[in-house]
């Protein structure tokens, strides 16, 4: 009998904590050794972590970076509830049961090489992961990405003036994520908190600046990708609709199995056949924004 191709695509690993850094705003950068997950993960995927032996449920956390060769996986999360607060106490050398990679990844399309990535708060990690896959290889890339990251608490990295010029953005907006800059990925930061060099406004306002600066032909080559709080995603979807751009969003929801078994983590989407409940874990977490925000 032919079994589905999905068999054996998610790995349960006893992952060692390699490093765990605390950042302001209860943000944590966690690096774990999970080689099977690292080798298989694609941008948009997440891991389902056993944060503490006392908790009956795992916690889904999106992947920010992987190194398939070394086998590590980077996660950025904010301690917001009991599970993530207990996770924050895990120290290097301890082990975390890790289930991953899980989820349908983002899909970039060759006919739309101007890839606009918008990440807000703990929605930043999937955008960094997607950006890493668009890095120029050997000085050449078919992709022309722009990453816009927003945060209302200090960014979990030290922003620095970007070395990459981005036409169409206000000249004073120079703050960038060093990692992306080093990869040669144009990027800028936005916040309402008045952080130096950041755009003073919402990520969608900065994205609008850029979109309005493009001519019709260039704008026709844009596809939008976003992850962040629900109101931000709704605003991104409105912006994409206004400019008639395709848009993929990554969602989150309380989750139990993370494998499609319980249908606990659903989102209602519009389909040609009418409304449907889709599982964020395996039908997503990446969805067509127009199906979610109708």
């Amino acid at each position: 009998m032919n079994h589905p191709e999905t068999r054996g695509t998610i790995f349960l690993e006893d992952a060692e904590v390699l490093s765990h850094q605390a950042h302001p705003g209860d943000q944590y950068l966690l690096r774990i050794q999970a080689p099977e997950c690292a080798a298989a993960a694609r941008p948009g995927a997440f891991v389902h972590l056993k944060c503490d032996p006392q908790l009956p449920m795992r916690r889904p956390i999106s992947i920010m970076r992987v190194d398939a060769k070394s086998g590590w996986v980077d996660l950025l999360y904010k301690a917001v509830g009991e599970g993530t607060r207990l996770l924050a106490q895990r120290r290097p050398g301890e082990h975390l049961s890790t289930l991953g990679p899980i989820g349908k990844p983002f899909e970039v399309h060759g006919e739309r090489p101007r890839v606009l990535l918008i990440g807000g708060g703990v929605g930043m990690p999937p955008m960094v992961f997607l950006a890493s896959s668009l890095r120029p290889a050997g000085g050449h890339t078919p992709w022309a990405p722009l990453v816009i990251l927003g945060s209302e608490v200090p960014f979990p990295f030290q922003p620095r003036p970007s070395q990459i010029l981005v036409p169409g953005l206000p000249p004073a907006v120079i703050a960038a994520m060093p990692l992306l800059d080093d990869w040669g990925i144009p990027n800028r930061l936005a916040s309402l908190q008045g952080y130096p060099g950041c755009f003073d406004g919402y990520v969608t306002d900065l994205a609008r600046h850029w979109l309005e600066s493009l001519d019709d032909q260039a704008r026709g080559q844009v596809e939008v990708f976003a992850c962040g709080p629900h109101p931000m995603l709704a605003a991104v979807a409105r912006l994409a609709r206004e400019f008639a751009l395709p848009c993929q969003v990554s969602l989150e929801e309380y989750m139990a199995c993370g494998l499609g078994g319980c249908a606990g983590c659903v989102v209602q989407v519009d389909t040609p056949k009418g409304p449907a409940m889709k599982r964020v874990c395996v039908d997503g977490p990446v969805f067509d924004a127009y199906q979610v925000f109708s």
Partner: protein
Amino acid sequence: MITANDPRLEMEFCGMRFGTPLVLLSGCVGFGEEYTRVKGFSNRDAGAVCLKGTTLEPRLGNQPHRVYETPAGMLNAIGLQNPGVDFVVRDILPTLDFSETRFIANVSGSTVEEYYEVTRRFDDSPIDAMEINISCPNVKEGGVAFGNDPQMSARVVAACRRATSKPLIVKLSPNQTDIAANARGCLEAGGDAFSVINTLMGMAIDLDSRTPVIGNNQGGLSGPAIKPIALLKVHQVYQVCREHRVPIIGQGGVQSARDALEFLIAGASAVGLGTALFYDPLICKTINAGICDYLGRHGLSHVSQLTGSLRLHERPPVVCGC
């Protein structure tokens, strides 16, 4: 590690051959294929897999949030989201590998007639058995509204009995006064076995919004928090089942081989796994091995020797000391 197909674990359940006494519970493993995504997971490690609750017509289910962690457990209110029995029979069952395990349909409905019709359609399919879900706490009609009324429970079971000669497993609710009386009525109506217990109704409240966390306002509580309740219910239903040699799938908060053994001793012939799978999708292997280890250490040759082996304390007359 000792896993499936250990002869000490192989058993017969209502005429079906189970490779192990473990049953993956309805609503936890989708329609039988979802967990195979995990490398190392095999349906062969379970004696049977109960498919997601199925109704006559497709159902969207409840609005989110549908799940929420609580102390030593979780609440869920999925609301029987399913694509309808015809889709399940036509499009899903042919994709399942029946050589791996026994697949049990979970029959749900809002009326007695719907239970009958869903059962009838599954009867005309390769499904091995049917579990009658008269205890779903998360739908407005049917479900637990039937399960908490012994007469209605019996009517539903009798209707399903008319629709099939395949094994009928009645899933009993803990949210009722006398579970043993209900079990007796369901047996007389034609039930072949019992699942004991379904979830207990509960609520969680968000302090900021002062609203229930669960979109359905209330949900079913599962996980280790309910294990002592489930053990007692299995013990009570076993008192009804013993003389009729009617088997029970004991379930409710099983997380380890130790838990599974307790259910067997209380009177279960098989043991259901639900919430524990969310935590450890490969837990079947661990529990199978743990049961074998216990059998070896206690000089037992087969898992069935444990069923109902509970030795109750003799009850001395109570003398009031006040």
